[in-house]
């Protein structure tokens, strides 16, 4: 069953917004960080999908389920801190460049992943793949609407059922934006009935 959109909230005015779904008390942006920073929640998640951690990719990386839990919670704190830095910089008049922050996936779909280097547990200065993804639809230049996010344990989104839920959320928001004549510039002549 797909989620219904309750509304949107502003993260960075004119540049970054987040969807809030019906049945949830927070925007996706806030909700995801709460989940990802909580070791018990992350532990439950890893335990549910422990078979994915047995894939050759993770075995070659030498990352155990315990390592993954610690890395995910640390990455969540570091990612939140990165957004806080961006926010505090806007106080000095800086305009955040989300075109650089979000990576193109497909059509209007983009994802955020932490790319700046942080000293992480057990990595001994070595890079490790980032686990966290924030999915968004690009509404226009340097303006994104967050639809959700996930802990990514597989290479492709179709390799895990829980990631399919994120695809459904992207489609739901995409359809809604089309209905509101926001996404498709070609249809702007039909917007008279909208306030």
């Amino acid at each position, binding site marked *: 069953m797909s989620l219904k959109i309750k509304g949107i*909230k*502003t993260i960075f005015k004119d540049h970054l917004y987040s969807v809030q779904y019906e049945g949830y008390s927070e925007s996706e942006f806030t909700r995801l960080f709460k989940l990802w920073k909580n*070791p018990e929640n992350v532990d439950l998640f890893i335990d549910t999908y422990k078979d994915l951690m047995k894939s050759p990719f993770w075995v070659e990386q030498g990352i155990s389920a315990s390592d993954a839990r610690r890395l995910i919670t640390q990455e969540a704190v570091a990612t*939140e*801190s990165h957004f806080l830095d961006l926010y505090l910089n806007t106080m000095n008049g800086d305009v955040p460049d989300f075109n650089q922050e979000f990576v193109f996936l497909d059509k209007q779909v983009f994802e955020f992943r932490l790319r700046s280097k942080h000293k992480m547990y057990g990595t001994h200065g070595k890079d490790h793949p980032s686990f966290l993804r924030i999915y968004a639809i690009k509404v226009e230049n340097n303006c994104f609407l967050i639809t959700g996010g996930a802990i990514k344990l597989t290479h492709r989104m179709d390799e895990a059922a829980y990631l399919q839920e994120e695809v459904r959320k992207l489609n739901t928001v995409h359809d809604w934006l089309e209905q509101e004549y926001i996404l498709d510039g070609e249809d702007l002549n039909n917007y008279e009935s909208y306030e």
Partner: protein
Amino acid sequence: MNKNMSKVDFLNKISAGQDTEWLKEAMWRRENAAWLKKSMDIANDVLDELHRQKMSKSDFARAMGVSPQRVTTLLSGKEKMNLETISKMEEALHVTLVRTGSNVEDSASEKHRHVASFMLPLVHYATESLKSADNIFVNSKRGKVELNCI
């Protein structure tokens, strides 16, 4: 969407307002980063130990004498735990979560015990040699003792 309205204006119009919740949380975390990191480390250590001992969270709660909800709070990674709570967790798990002067000493004794057990065959050999020896020569030089068994 009104035809005179840009896409961004439309988003601003329908937005329920600035999401201040993540911002407050992020600023609070930055101000309290030092102890929050420790809280998260302890939560991760406890979860590792629960997995290692195959202990459920409800058994852990029972061993600690607290409710399962309290355990959930403790494992949230943002709980300011006091020494009594940490000690209760250590007792329930039979492990040391936070090193202090005394348990660092305990840990050193543990290491000596390990060395001693490693040397047991050597001690056994020396004892057997002593039993069968007719003469024992003891040389003491600069605190070193040598036993020569003939």
